[in-house]
């Protein structure tokens, strides 16, 4: 009982002792890097729409995202994306490129354990929850719409 009290007091003391970093520089960096990635995405999208004027907006977005995923995956492979991430934080995690990075990075990292048990098994160690939550929640949304459509 006394231990618990001491631990609580100690944890409180430690969290007060942790150096406070100024949030503005990192917020600013993630703002402009994130904005820039979106700008590049818009640019790619506009170019696709210019080259293939007959495709729908939805197809355009799909092509854009696939291109961005390709670029991010490549940058991860040559070891550049983690340096962008160190600088930009949320700015390079939140865009779809961060999703791509989170799939490619464990694949490369665990290559040394072989193709099956390394690359394939570890591929979703970080991005797995994203797909699980995304698909599961989309099913919930679909279910709700289906129930509504019954009436």
């Amino acid at each position, binding site marked *: 009982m006394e231990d618990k009290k001491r631990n609580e007091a100690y944890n409180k003391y430690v969290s007060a002792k942790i150096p406070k*970093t100024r*949030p503005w520089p*990192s*917020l600013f960096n*993630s*703002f402009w890097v*994130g*904005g*820039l990635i*979106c*700008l590049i*995405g*818009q640019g790619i999208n506009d170019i696709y729409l210019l080259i293939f004027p007959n495709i729908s907006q939805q197809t355009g*977005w*799909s*092509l854009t*995202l*696939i291109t961005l995923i390709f670029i991010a*995956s490549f940058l991860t*492979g*040559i*070891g550049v994306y*983690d340096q962008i991430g*160190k600088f*930009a934080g*949320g*700015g390079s*995690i*939140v*865009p*779809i*490129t*961060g*999703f*791509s990075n*989170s*799939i*490619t*990075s464990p*694949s*490369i990292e665990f290559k040394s354990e072989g*193709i099956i048990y390394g*690359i*394939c098994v570890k*591929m979703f160690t*970080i*991005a797995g*929850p*994203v797909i699980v*939550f*995304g*698909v599961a929640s*989309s*099913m919930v*949304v*679909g*279910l709700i*719409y*289906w129930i509504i*459509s019954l009436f």
Partner: protein
Amino acid sequence: MEIFLTYLWVFLVGGLVCALGELLIITTNITSARILVTFVLIGVFLEAVGLFDYISDFAKAGINVPIVGFGASLAKGAIGAVKTHGFLGIFTGGLTATAGGIAAAIGFAFLFALIFHSHTKK
């Protein structure tokens, strides 16, 4: 002039969404996997209540490139498939709509994992 305004909106909204993610990291120290999950769920929610298209109309890539757009596509796919296929759409909709992105991520990750080695951080 109009294109400039479009790109300004893209930059501002995209940057703001990313800065929101950074704010979450700073204040709660959560890992990048949780950030991605949070924003996918936000996207699903925005689409489900019908807000996403309003934002997408003026923010374009600013909201579609962040993983929020991925979540929105999942929800949009599910809703659309329920409308056309009924009950089956609950299961097929989400992944059908995002198949391109997921397949690209898996395919390119596999390809580059075969080519490249991991680098030590500086």
